[in-house]
């Protein structure tokens, strides 16, 4: 419990710190690298939650594929840090106010006594969160959504190619 608490504190601290850094950093490349740090710490949290397959997927898909896409676009377009970092005018104050309202609302929901739950059990079924167990559920109960996801990805590929073509917009 002590070790797990320490690991949780470490991953959570890294995630929150790097997330704040990402939002307020000027250089887009640094923003992308800070986002990688956030994603890797969330992957560590997934391991703490007995979800090894999701943790591996997080590293592969997010920290691997999606971040490379971001870095490609930064370097392809040669985007530099914009001179006023934040939006100007009333949008900034309104945005921060709105974010505070969202946070209070989320905390209210999380801390409300109606969602009182017992401590998570330490007795897990064998193979909980393993690739084999997830695959069994995915290819039986969730087969149709899984197949529809492949169509979605195909549409995304076609859309990305068409949009990135010259003289489109």
């Amino acid at each position, binding site marked *: 419990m002590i070790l797990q608490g320490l690991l949780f504190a470490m991953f959570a601290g890294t995630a929150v710190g790097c997330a704040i850094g990402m939002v307020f950093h000027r250089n887009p490349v640094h923003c992308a690298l800070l986002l990688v740090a956030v994603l890797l710490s969330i992957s560590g949290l997934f391991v703490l939650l007995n979800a090894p397959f*999701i943790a591996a997927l997080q590293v592969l898909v997010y920290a691997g594929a999606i971040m490379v896409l971001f870095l490609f676009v930064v370097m392809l*377009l040669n985007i530099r840090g914009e001179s006023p970092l*934040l*939006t100007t005018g009333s949008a900034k104050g309104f945005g921060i106010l709105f974010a505070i309202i*969202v*946070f209070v609302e989320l905390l209210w929901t999380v801390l409300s006594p109606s969602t009182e*739950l017992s401590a998570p059990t330490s007795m897990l079924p064998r193979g909980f969160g393993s690739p084999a167990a997830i695959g069994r559920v995915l290819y039986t109960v969730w087969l149709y959504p899984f197949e529809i*996801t492949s169509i979605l990805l195909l549409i995304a590929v076609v859309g990305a190619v068409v949009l990135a073509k010259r003289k*489109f917009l």
Partner: protein
Amino acid sequence: MPAAVIPLLWFQILAALLFTIGVVGVLVRRSALVIFMSIELMLNAVNLSFVAFSRQHVSMDGHIFVFFVMAVAAAEVAVGLAILIAIFRNRDTASVDEVRLLKG
């Protein structure tokens, strides 16, 4: 091996915090690229919440949902960055304050 017994509440509060940071990024930044990154951050906060509830209820449906969220996020990033490239090619900027064709 004893499994993790970190309370669900900790993960929920962390997810709320990360989601809020993502909201701030979307609402406050000017660079469309960083706005995309903030959206990824919000999706990840929700994923963390899903997995935490999955652990609490000893059900793997949350893991499956995270899988689908990741697939949708990958599709969203591919299309979104393609749109960003198209905008940058025409307007030579990635700032959302400059691109306001629909604003009138």
